[in-house]
């Protein structure tokens, strides 16, 4: 338990240092926080059910009453957007939780055990890296369409997003294993488990956070891609699904209802920029030359 709280405290400290010390991280993190607040704190107060049709007047441009306008499906875009942000982020979070931790675990085992175990694990990892992710997911989601929910979609996407973190953690562990301080720890009589947790983990943790962020980014992108192709959960709200309906059902562009499309697209761009900035900021910070 002690190590867990210590790790959490280290993470917290890291976040604060990052926020204070890195402009990119600060911008990214601020945008992200606003999005998270909109998605999780604001969206429950929606006056209407964002999944129902025709509950507000259709095709209204942005106005005082409907700040982001309404869609041809008769939904208030502001509230639909908030719900979409929530669901998209949830999917992404589920993916990142699963994929980056599988990656961490397998990477660690491969890096530490080496030999045959390493070779087998890396063979599997490489196989998954080679299989193109989106086509595979398209097949799987088509088959499982009826069973898709927000969390299960997140799980499905994690099938294709664990190999990279795993490779990255492995290579880190491999190079750390040869560092002198690992030998010092062993010669100080520390057992293998303690060497892993206390000497290796602090290094890998930072990169783990980056992997986590990148996986979120990957997952949001993948879900949007699937949704635009009509393969996501079309009766719920996600950013991708909003775009799908606006394009394929509402012909929003042809009919000049630009606000229907603009809201989710702009939000997606913001999500991408913010996560990207957060990830870049962290990478800059972790980089050994910059960090010292």
């Amino acid at each position, binding site marked *: 338990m002690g190590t867990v709280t210590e790790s959490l405290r280290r993470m917290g400290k890291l976040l604060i*240092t990052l926020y*204070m*010390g*890195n402009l990119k991280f600060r911008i990214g993190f601020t945008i992200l926080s606003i999005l998270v607040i909109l998605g999780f704190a604001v969206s429950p107060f929606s006056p209407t059910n964002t999944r129902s049709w025709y509950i507000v007047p259709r095709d209204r441009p942005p106005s005082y009453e409907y700040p982001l306008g309404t869609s041809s499906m008769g939904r208030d875009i502001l509230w639909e957007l908030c719900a979409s942000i929530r669901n998209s982020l949830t999917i992404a979070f589920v993916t990142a939780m699963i994929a980056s931790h599988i990656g961490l675990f397998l990477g660690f085992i491969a890096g530490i055990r080496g030999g045959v175990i390493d070779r087998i694990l890396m063979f599997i990892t490489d196989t998954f890296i080679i299989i193109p992710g989106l086509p595979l997911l398209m097949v799987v989601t088509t088959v499982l369409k009826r069973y898709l929910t927000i969390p299960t979609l997140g799980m499905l996407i994690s099938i294709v997003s664990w190999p990279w973190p795993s490779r990255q953690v492995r290579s880190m562990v491999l190079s750390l294993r040869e560092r002198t301080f690992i030998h010092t720890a062993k010669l100080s009589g520390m057992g293998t488990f303690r060497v892993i947790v206390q000497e290796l983990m602090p290094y890998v943790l930072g990169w783990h956070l980056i992997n986590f962020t990148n996986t979120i980014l990957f997952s949001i992108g993948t879900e949007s891609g699937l949704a635009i192709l009509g393969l996501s959960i079309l009766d719920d709200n996600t950013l991708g699904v909003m775009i799908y309906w606006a394009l394929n059902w509402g012909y929003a562009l042809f009919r000049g209802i630009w606000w229907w499309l603009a809201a989710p697209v702009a939000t997606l761009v913001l999500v991408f920029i913010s996560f990207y900035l957060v990830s870049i900021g962290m990478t*800059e*910070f972790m980089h050994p030359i*910059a*960090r*010292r």
Partner: protein
Amino acid sequence: MIVEGLKAGYKLQTIGSSEEVGVYVDAVSGVSFTLYRNEVFGIAGESGCGKSTLIKAVYGYYEPSLVLRGGSARIYGAKGEEFDTTRMDRGLLEKRVWWKHMSYIPQSSMNVLNPTMRIRDHFAEILRIHVGMKKGEAYQEARKYLEEVGLPVDALSAFPHQLSGGMRQRVVIALAILLEPSLILADEPSSALDVINQKVALTLLREKQEALKNTLVIVSHDMGVHGVLTHRMAIMYAGKIVEIGRTADIFWKPLHPYTKALIESLPRLGDKSKRVGLSGSPPDLKKPPDGCRFHPRCPYAMLICSRAEPSLREIKEGHYTACWLYSEAVGEPR
């Protein structure tokens, strides 16, 4: 070449510790010396004493954090052309001075060699830019030249990583001498090599210097290298030159207490008598001590040493030191 009052240092740009951003590291603090034609000049000192920074500043090779704070470095070409490298920007230096009049051999040859270019193309590029030679002609020239410096001709078509460390360093040396510059700056040219390769590389440098009768500057922390190679040398400590003189004088009649300690701590084959090093460690150049920078570690430190900075004074002919022990005001040394 004349270097006068050169001041350079690093502005820290670390992200990690925000309180250190903008702190100035006083790595080269008012260094002056003169180099003559046809000599090998050594700059010795321990890690962090500013010797590499000095060379980079003279060469005009400024990394983003390295800043110049004053002084000049004038070099004279073979026909008497004068350049002040501290007044020239990088583009101008690249076009007019580097390789042609002054070349630089860094510690790691990989800093000079482009990993995606074959060795012969490195030669061809320099010959093309500075002499205007065509590619085919340049290849011929490179081949002839490599034979001259005793490198296997097959090395020409190799990529840098395919050569051993010793060979790579010799290729860099060959490149540096290619246009027969009047000044060659070698920054720890052999520290990454083992003794035998070191000897091969250093003798090559020395032979070429003898043939060209130009000036060769060797920066090395290894006193042995200076002892066998240089004519005159300077000892640096914490960003300042503490002693300059003929190598033989420095080795057998050192003046400055720091030089003495360096020489005395040098182990020699066939001599098992006890060697004693210095205690303490070099000062932090972010906040160097007042007075003489060596005084906290100096066994002869006097009151004045912590108050005023000694200047470099000629004690014997051609032998300078910056130490209060040799000042008339204080009297003769013990």
